[in-house]
């Protein structure tokens, strides 16, 4: 599928942390209240993870399910598996009030890695990293745009809207320049 190109076609920058635009990553916005019958099963069926609790993201290999709001989840699957996942959700949630849409192409995804990766985010988002719990998905502001990120042992995955990918790359590049380490 060579005609499928992520927002920045894999742009990279190496400063005191390394920045990579990755993707395309398959993403689904799933809107449903947690009490919808069969919701947890449906989510597990597509991601292999439990339904995430408040502000959590549950990760299983290249799939994940994140809590976005009291009636919204983020489903992450490989790009090619989105259509299948949507079909499974439609089937499992049939008859229940919900909305599931493909947003894979509406997003840009970055990896921020390195010992001081957190410092890149500390320059851009009004977030107290010390209060984040493991597996927390934080939706916030990245300088002047909306974004969300979560951590794993190698670094951070940051998601923003596709149209501002270049802006976010600019922010990350500015922030990760060698010589501007915070601590």
């Amino acid at each position, binding site marked *: 599928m060579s005609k499928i190109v992520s927002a920045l076609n894999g742009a990279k920058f190496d400063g005191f942390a390394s920045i990579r635009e990755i993707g395309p990553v398959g993403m689904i916005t799933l809107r449903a209240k947690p009490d919808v019958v069969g919701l947890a099963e449906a989510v597990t069926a597509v991601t292999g993870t439990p339904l995430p609790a*408040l*502000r959590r993201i549950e990760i299983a290999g290249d799939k994940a399910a994140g809590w*976005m*709001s*009291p009636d*919204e989840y983020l489903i992450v699957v490989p790009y090619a598996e989105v259509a299948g996942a949507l079909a499974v959700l439609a089937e499992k949630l049939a008859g229940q009030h919900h909305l599931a849409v493909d947003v894979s192409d509406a997003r840009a995804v970055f990896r921020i890695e390195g010992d001081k990766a957190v410092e890149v985010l500390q320059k851009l988002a*009004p977030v107290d990293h010390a209060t984040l719990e493991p597996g927390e998905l*934080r*939706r*916030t*502001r990245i300088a002047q745009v*909306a974004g969300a990120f979560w951590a794993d042992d190698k670094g951070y995955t940051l998601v923003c809207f596709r149209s501002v990918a270049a802006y976010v790359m600019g922010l990350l590049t500015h922030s990760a320049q060698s010589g501007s380490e915070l601590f």
Partner: protein
Amino acid sequence: MLILECPYCGVKAEETELTPGYEAHLKRFGPGSSDEDFENYMFARKNPKGVHFERWRHAYGCGKWFLAARCTATLEVFGTYPAQTSEPPAEIVAKIKAKRPDWKGYK
């Protein structure tokens, strides 16, 4: 630079993650309503120098609208609660009364 705790996701959000929405608990008046009711709904504002009930949206976070009781003179926040509430919750009212004995009440 305020911080308000979003009652939906529990994030202590700073003001730049929120969008403000002015007075809360307005009752909508549509077709058929009197001129006065409609005018009051659209324009007349309590605008108190003191305890104010107001709307905020956790725009950069979970996207939900919530309500806050906040003093416009000291910026003290007495509490936040979901937007799906027709009147200020009793415990917030009690807290305000305890702290501001001369407060005339929500109406």
